[in-house]
C-alpha cells in the first residue's frame, strides 16, 4: 500500500514535467493547429547552451535555467521562421515535414559541437528528500509540480484574458480578418512559438536537472512525451495538457514498479492506443475535429 501511494506520488511528479511539455505543444498544435516536430529538439538546443555554461563557466542552476529557456525560445523562433512562417495560411503538412528536417539539423548540430554523447547538467536542489509520514518527496519534484500548475494557469489566463491571447485566437479563427483589423499576424505567431518553446525550456530544465545529464536524444524524448501527453489530455485543451501529463506519469510509474523499466515506455503507447480507440478526443478534448480555437465564424 505504501509502495502504491509512493509510486503514485512519483508518477504525479514526473507526470507534471510531461504536462509542461504538453502545454508548449498544445499552444502550437491545439491553438495554432500546427504540428512542430522540432519542439523537443529546440528544447535540447537550450539544454546544450545550458550545459556549456555549466561546464565551461561553472554557472549556477538559476543562470543555467535562464539561458536554457532563452536558448529554447530562440531555437523555437528559428524553427518558426524556417518551417511555419513561409506557409502560414495552409499546407500544415508541409510545415510538419520541414519541422522534421530541422529536427535532424538541430540534433546533428548538437552532436557536431559537443561530440561526446552525454554532458553533465547541474542539479536544482541537493540534500535528502523531505519525509512526509512514510513517504518521500523530492524538492525538485515539488518545484516541477508547482511550475506545471502555475504555468497552466498563466497560459489559460493569457489566452482568454489578455489582448495578445485574444489576438492569437482571432488569428486562428480568421487570419485574413485579423490582419486587416491591424494585428501583425507574423509577429504574433512568432511570439506564440517563442512562448511555447520557452515553456518547453522550463520543462526541459527541470527534467535535465533531475537526470543531471543531457544527450542529443533528449529532443526526441521531449517531442514524444509531450505529444503523447497532449493527445491523452485532449487536443487543444490547456488544462487537458497537464491532466494528460499527470495520467501518463502515474501509469508509467506503476508499470515500471510492477513490470520493470522496459515496460515503462510501452505503457505510454498502450495508454495512447486505448485512448485513440475508445475516446479519441482525449480527457478534456471535445469531439475530434474541434478544439478551443474552433472557429464558429458566421
Amino acid at each position, binding site marked *: 500500500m505504501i509502495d502504491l501511494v509512493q509510486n503514485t506520488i512519483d508518477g504525479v511528479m514526473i507526470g507534471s514535467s510531461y504536462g509542461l511539455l504538453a502545454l508548449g505543444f498544445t499552444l502550437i498544435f491545439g491553438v495554432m493547429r500546427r504540428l512542430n516536430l522540432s519542439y523537443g529538439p529546440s528544447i535540447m538546443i537550450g539544454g546544450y547552451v545550458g550545459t556549456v555554461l555549466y561546464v565551461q563557466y561553472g554557472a549556477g542552476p538559476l543562470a543555467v535555467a535562464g539561458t536554457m529557456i532563452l536558448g529554447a525560445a530562440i531555437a523555437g523562433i528559428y524553427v518558426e521562421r524556417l518551417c511555419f512562417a513561409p506557409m502560414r495560411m495552409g499546407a500544415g503538412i508541409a510545415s510538419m515535414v520541414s519541422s522534421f528536417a530541422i529536427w535532424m539539423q538541430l540534433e546533428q548540430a548538437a552532436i557536431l559541437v559537443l561530440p561526446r554523447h552525454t554532458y553533465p547538467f547541474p542539479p536544482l536542489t541537493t540534500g535528502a528528500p523531505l519525509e512526509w509520514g512514510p513517504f518521500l518527496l523530492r524538492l525538485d519534484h515539488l518545484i516541477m509540480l508547482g511550475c506545471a500548475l502555475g504555468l497552466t494557469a498563466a497560459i489559460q489566463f493569457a489566452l482568454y484574458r489578455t489582448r495578445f491571447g485574444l489576438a492569437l485566437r482571432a488569428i486562428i479563427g*480568421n487570419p485574413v480578418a485579423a490582419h*486587416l*483589423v491591424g494585428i501583425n499576424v507574423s509577429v504574433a505567431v512568432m511570439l506564440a512559438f517563442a512562448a511555447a518553446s520557452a515553456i518547453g525550456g522550463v520543462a526541459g530544465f527541470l527534467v535535465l536537472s533531475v537526470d543531471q545529464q543531457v544527450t542529443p536524444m533528449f529532443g526526441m524524448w521531449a517531442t514524444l512525451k509531450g505529444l503523447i501527453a497532449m493527445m491523452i489530455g485532449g487536443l487543444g485543451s490547456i488544462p487537458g495538457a497537464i491532466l494528460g501529463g499527470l495520467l501518463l506519469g502515474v501509469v508509467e510509474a506503476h508499470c515500471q514498479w510492477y513490470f520493470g523499466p522496459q515496460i515503462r515506455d510501452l505503457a505510454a503507447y498502450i495508454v495512447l492506443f486505448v485512448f485513440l480507440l475508445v475516446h479519441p478526443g482525449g480527457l478534456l478534448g471535445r469531439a475530434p475535429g474541434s478544439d478551443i480555437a474552433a472557429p464558429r*465564424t458566421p
Partner: protein
Amino acid sequence: MGNAKVLELHGLTKHFGGVRAVDGVDLTVASGEILGLIGPNGSGKSTIVNLICGLFPLTAGRVLFGGADISELPPHTRVALGITRTFQNIRLFGQLTVWQNLWVAQNSGEQRKQNFLPRWLGGSKGARAEIDRMLEFFDLGHKRDELAGNLAFGEQRRLEFARALAARPALLLLDEPAAGMNAEEIEQLDSRIRKMRQNGVTVLLIEHHMELVMSVADRIAVLNFGQKIAEGTASAVQSNPVVRDAYLGTTTGA
C-alpha cells in the same frame, strides 16, 4: 492631418492574370467627405477596397494616405495609420465575445499610444471605456458578453461596423454595409454614417443600394470594367448617359 486630401489613388491598377480588375483608376477623397463608389457587379469596387487596405500588391499605381505613399505598407501598418474597413461577407471573430471583438481591433488611435507590453496585456483604460460607448452607439450593449458567432445577422453587421470604428480610424472603408439589411436597418445605417462624419471620419462607401448612396454620399464615382467612367454629385451621375448605359447594359449610340 493638415492635408485636405485624405486618400489619393493615382493610376491604381490590379491585374489577376489576364483580368484587368482595376485599370488605372484615379480617385481623391477629401477630409470629412463621404464618397460613394458604385458600379455593376465585377466592376472592381471591392478590389479597390482590398488594394487600399493592402490585402494584395498593386500591379501599378500609387495609394497616398494623408499625402504619404502607403502603396508598399502591410495591412496592419495601414490600420495603425488610421484606415479600417468592414467586409462585404461578414468576417467577425466568432469564438470571441462581442466586447472582445472590438478590443482586439483597437489597433490605431488611443491604444497606439501605449508601449508594446501594456498594449497587448490589458490595453489602455480609455480605450476600454471607448468600447462600451461604441457598443451603446450601435445598440449592442446588451450583447456585450455574447459570442459574436451567436449573434443574429443584423447584429453581426452592426458589430463589424463597430469593430471598424473601434480603432478610431481617419478613413473608413465600408464594403456593401447594407447588404441583406431591411429598410429600417438601412435607415439606421444612413444616420450612423452621417453621425460618424460629424465626428470627423472620412468615408469611402461601396454600395449597391442606390437610395442609400444617393442620400448619404457627397460625391459619387462610378466604375465599370475596372475603369472610372463618371464622378460627381448624385444628380449629375444619375443623369450621365454613360452611367446609364453601364447599368442598363446598352451601348452608347446603339
